[in-house]
């Protein structure tokens, strides 16, 4: 058994895996939906159509429920590197610590500095200033994702550094930041957040149309959402394929695990080109106990040639091999979801082309709407499985080929590690359960169609005080349109 699978190290991995998996539930909505909210706000300001405003305010409520959970779990992540992986943090600190420092200063704080204005600034600051705040929240959360993917991408393909006196010291910042994995991994993750948020919009819209509540309003939202998805979903599949080829090149053990590819060559000496649809892998025996294979597909996928050689697990020492079960099946689930979501986007736009994307038509054949509601959950699963593939495929390394996971684990015992795990299971489930419960509460309540549109009257002061506090330099005319 490799050291990474012995109890204290395995527990430290589980500790980190759990908080990461629970954190990544929230960030995609923060990153992706902030852009969508910005577009809704711009649409309202440009056209003056009230329905864009109503939709913005409605989804903003869901956004803020999600946001609190994202921040709370994110603060944990920031500290967990040092707590659970102290020696790792020290060794990678010269690069990785700097990047996390960049992230807190240019992104985390940047976002926090505008989120209050975005959520509670309605009526307290001008419309233009408010749209600016929303834009800053969107930009800062995307920047945050970028820095995190720089750091994580570098763990996958560490370039631009040299190991000296137990520290990874940077020799070339450019190469270290724009490491090969980041260049494709970041677009893949960022597009995932947009795709997830668009399906969030689509699923909520579909639910309202199904229930025949504000059906026309949500059909209005569904149209541009589906149009965006017909571009985003195939783009994501394309970028995913690029990332797969990148991993094949820079992290062959991970690719071999993802594809359950044990033998580089067949017994007759020819390259093993078969792609496994499903398999029962046995890592210790170094083979699949059972598999359904399609010849040439693996070579086509990874090398874009008919007979290209794809390095298999047999080229690596047993203690350098990752687990195969998790990457193999996680990867397949993610890919299947990617294609299913593409089909949903095609279906929706095909309905629109035939003029059938209206509330009455859709309700007559509710299968599309029901599947759309179901599709709202799938991107979450795809993000999870994708990240698991990435992280478990990299094992037994924490910095690929340079630092093994056990070398980075903190000085702590099984008791402390278990205490962490149990505590975080309780708290993060509370967060998850609470957030999803309040999502349903907000959705059931529906958009507020009655309260006056902000800026439509001069009287925005509340009985409880703390109302309109116009900044002296905000143009007063901003609040007096209509």
């Amino acid at each position, binding site marked *: 058994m490799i050291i990474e699978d012995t109890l204290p190290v395995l527990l430290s991995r589980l500790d980190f895996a759990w908080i990461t998996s629970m954190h990544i539930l929230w960030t995609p909505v923060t990153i992706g939906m902030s852009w969508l909210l910005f577009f809704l706000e711009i649409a309202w300001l440009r056209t003056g159509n009230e329905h864009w405003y109503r939709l913005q305010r409605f989804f903003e409520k869901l956004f803020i429920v999600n946001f609190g959970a994202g921040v709370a779990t994110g603060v944990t992540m920031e500290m967990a590197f040092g707590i659970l992986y102290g020696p790792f943090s020290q060794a990678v600190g010269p690069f990785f610590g700097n990047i996390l420092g960049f992230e807190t200063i240019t992104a985390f704080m940047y976002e926090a500095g505008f989120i209050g204005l975005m959520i509670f600034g309605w009526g307290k600051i001008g419309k233009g200033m408010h749209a600016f705040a929303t834009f800053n929240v969107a930009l800062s959360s995307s920047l945050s994702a970028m820095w995190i993917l720089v750091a994580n991408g570098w763990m996958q393909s560490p370039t631009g550094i040299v190991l000296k006196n137990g520290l990874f010291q940077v020799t070339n910042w450019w190469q270290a930041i724009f490491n090969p994995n980041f260049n494709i991994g970041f677009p893949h993750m960022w597009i995932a957040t947009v795709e997830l948020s668009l399906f969030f919009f689509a699923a909520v819209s579909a639910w309202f149309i199904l229930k025949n509540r504000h059906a026309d309003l949500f059909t209005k939202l569904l149209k541009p959402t589906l149009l965006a998805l017909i571009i985003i979903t195939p783009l994501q599949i394309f970028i995913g394929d690029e990332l797969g080829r990148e991993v094949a090149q820079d992290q062959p053990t991970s690719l071999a695990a993802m594809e359950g590819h044990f033998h580089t060559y067949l017994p007759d000496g020819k390259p093993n080109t078969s792609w496994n649809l499903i398999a029962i892998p046995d890592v210790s025996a170094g083979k699949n106990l059972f598999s359904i294979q399609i010849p040439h597909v693996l070579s086509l996928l990874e090398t874009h040639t008919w007979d290209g050689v794809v390095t298999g697990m047999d080229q690596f020492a047993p203690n350098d091999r990752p687990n195969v079960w998790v990457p193999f099946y996680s990867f397949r689930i993610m890919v299947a979801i990617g294609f299913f979501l593409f089909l949903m986007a095609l279906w929706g736009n095909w309905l629109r082309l035939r003029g059938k994307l209206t509330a009455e038509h859709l309700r007559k054949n509710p299968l599309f709407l029901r599947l759309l509601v179901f599709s709202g959950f799938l991107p979450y699963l795809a993000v999870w499985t994708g990240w698991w593939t990435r992280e478990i495929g990299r094992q037994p390394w924490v910095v690929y080929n340079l630092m093994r996971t056990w*070398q980075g684990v903190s000085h702590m015992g099984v008791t402390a590690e278990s205490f962490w795990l149990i505590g975080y299971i309780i708290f993060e489930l509370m967060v998850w359960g609470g957030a999803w419960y309040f999502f349903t509460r907000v959705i059931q309540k529906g958009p507020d169609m009655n309260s006056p549109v902000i800026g439509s009257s001069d009287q925005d002061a509340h009985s409880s005080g703390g109302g309109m506090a116009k900044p002296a330099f905000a143009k007063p005319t901003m609040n007096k349109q209509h």
Partner: protein
Amino acid sequence: MDEIFRIHSTLGTFWWILLGVFFVIYIVLDGADLGAGVFSLLLNNENDRAAVMSSMAGTWDANETWLVVAGGVIFGAFPLVYGATFNYLMIPLMFALWGIISRAVAFEFHVHAKSSRKFWGFMFGFGSLIAALFAGIALGATLLGFPMATGNAQGIQVANDPFVNTVPHFSGNALSFLSAFSVWTGIGALIAGGLAGTLYLCARFEQNDPIYLKAHKAATLFSFLALAAVVITLIWSYAIMPDAAKWTGNSWFGWLILLIAILISAYKMMTNHAAHRDFSALLWCGAIVVFMWGGMWATNFPYIIPQTWTISAGANPANDLAILTLFMTGFVPVMITYNIYQIWVFRKRITHLAGYESH
């Protein structure tokens, strides 16, 4: 080579000062929010608690994020300190984080809750209490230092491991942080938070509001408690901390001036508070924090963690520290500017009725 070391040590000292600044900003801003949360446990009416929450609705997240910035700066500028110290502080940080999580989600859930409203109100107050208590414990534990060793942290021995016998890791146990002093600093943090929180609420609520009246009384009580806590902490620190010997050393005169500045600020805070000049009282309270934290930072010099990590031993290697300085220093004033703007937008006094409104 000497030149490089000098640059390195200068940059290290620069980030050490900046780190001190970030901690002060965090303590002044979030200390008040946490303290207000602790005070909210004393309110019986759920709507009053909601009013306390809405008083900081637009700013709590940014205030809390200064802690993340401080954490990020430790990781970026002092990664060796970060990896060892956070490992040492595992248990207190874990509890503080659970408090922060409970409090953060309570903000978003409380407004939508009906049957669970009381529960989330409690989680807001109790989460604030746990976060402040354990942050204080972590601070006290840090001041006492911790044992380190250079072997593999998990005790796994393998031939030619490039990561052993180089950087020292934490080598105590999970409960090393626990001592009478660290428990006391935890309690001290609660008292200081209570003072800052009630002063903050006085500045945020209309002066005839019932919440204002309660907070005003509590702040008076907390200010006496805080004064006593400061005296106890100073005497205790002088008795057990080797670096505190500076206070009576050659430059005793400077330390005396600092002490007088603290006492004047405390006096100003209390008179302003009594005269209902709430914002001035809050600012004088902030001044006490600045003086005390600055004094603590200066006492520890050249250590960043007393008797454990010096600034230069814990800092990032020179070229990486230079990059951090080059790219990040310019952002600091920008960051402070938009935070001031956000706080300024939400400056108007509110009333307890704010608790009846959903956001």
